[in-house]
């Protein structure tokens, strides 16, 4: 088990954006996080990525309780990496973007070079290594952002709508990359999406969020829920909601 979460809430002002009694995320699986806009998907990803604390609740990461203090979170962020919906690349070369996380981990230069080449190969962007990162297209940016995240060899990769702002060709490429890294490196992946095709083709488990709550099997208001149930695609985590 990677995450074991209980009684999690996130409140902004007087609005509860997340209210999750129980959520477990298994190691090496791909989770699709579905839900309408404003359902709390990105907030949940931010909490899973240790980028913002929950208001209440307990989070265990690999059986260790998570304390939301900066000194405690930084090592966790080295193993859980998030790629945003509109990822931003540092205004330098693609190479240096990917090198950033490796330098932080004090990986020697020779090893860094190899990892960078490998990561760029994985996303089909090797010939862009010396290109200025801010000149890339949306799809290329997304792929480099994934390469940057993969280079640091995370245990968990969180992707917020990884294909929402890219063309069809890049969508297929990104889905294939995610499938490949999960298959080869056994990286746990949690991604948000509105695309039901992606859900069926990529994920092992499906999580539905609606108004901050994980939907139950009866799937109130989720017509997709029944379809996924019929196809046997609903993961075990749904029973925890």
């Amino acid at each position, binding site marked *: 088990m990677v995450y074991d979460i209980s009684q999690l809430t996130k409140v902004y002002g007087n609005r509860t954006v997340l209210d999750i009694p129980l959520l477990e995320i298994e190691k090496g699986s791909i989770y699709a996080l579905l839900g309408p806009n404003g359902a709390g998907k990105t907030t949940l990803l931010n909490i899973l990525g240790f980028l913002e604390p929950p208001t209440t609740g307990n989070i265990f990461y690999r059986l260790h309780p998570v304390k939301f203090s900066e000194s405690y979170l930084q090592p966790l*962020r080295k193993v859980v990496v998030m790629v945003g919906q509109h990822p931003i690349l540092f*205004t330098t070369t693609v190479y240096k973007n990917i090198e950033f996380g490796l330098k*932080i981990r004090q990986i020697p230069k020779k090893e860094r070079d190899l990892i960078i080449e490998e990561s760029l190969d994985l996303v089909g962007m090797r010939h862009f290594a010396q290109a200025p990162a801010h000149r890339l297209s949306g799809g290329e940016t997304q792929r480099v952002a994934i390469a940057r995240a993969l280079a640091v060899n995370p245990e968990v990769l969180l992707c917020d709508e990884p294909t929402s702002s890219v063309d069809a060709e890049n969508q297929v490429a990104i889905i294939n990359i995610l499938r490949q890294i999960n298959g080869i490196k056994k990286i746990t992946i949690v991604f948000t999406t509105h695309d039901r095709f992606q859900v069926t083709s990529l994920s092992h488990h499906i999580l539905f969020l609606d108004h901050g709550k994980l939907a139950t099997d009866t799937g109130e208001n989720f017509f997709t829920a029944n379809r996924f149930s019929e196809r046997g695609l609903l993961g075990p985590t749904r029973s925890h909601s």
Partner: protein
Amino acid sequence: MDLLVDSLLSALLLVASMDPEMVAIVAVSLKVSGISTVFASLMGVPFGFLVAFESFPGKRMLITCLNTLLALPTVVIGLFVYAFISRRGIFGPLDLLYTQKAMVIGQTILILPIIATFTIAAISKIDDRYRKTAMTLGANRVQTALVVFREARFGIVAAIIVAFGRVIAEVGISMMLGGNARGFTRTMTTAMALEYDKGQFTLAVALGIILMGLSFGINLLFHFFQGRTRV
């Protein structure tokens, strides 16, 4: 009209001949303004960065105060510093009045708020995704701050250029704290004021041409760096 044309032609000849007195005045201006800009940058950039990057009570009030200081007249700064460094001031024994050091102190005070506020603006404009990206890649607080600083680098350089442009063109502080001593504290602006008083326009116009040329160069640099912030 003849006066202007004659002065302009004589001034151009003076510039072309690299008149030693004129060169000395320009050198004093560049030296004093350069040192002031370095000191103000060393203090203003980190201060502005911290104000922009950190959250603390009274932050908005502090920024409002800094913005108010942008409009501080040079003569007010001149008076203020004079009160400290004149013979009767607490720093009187240091004998700073009518020295280049006094001018540097006054000019540093003048441009410190400019550099700080422009740095705050440059940092505040940086997309928050840079901070979040650095954090999710495992950066600690200092490494994250450095990422934000790096992304704001062109805006910060632009702040320093604006400050230099302001300080090299000021006259009040140089006159009140420097005393316009020939070959020592005479700057382009104080020399121009003196030549005007004497009714001799040639050197004044020549210095004016150089000052305008410098201002043009500074503005070109500013627009270059400002343009780079939009890449």
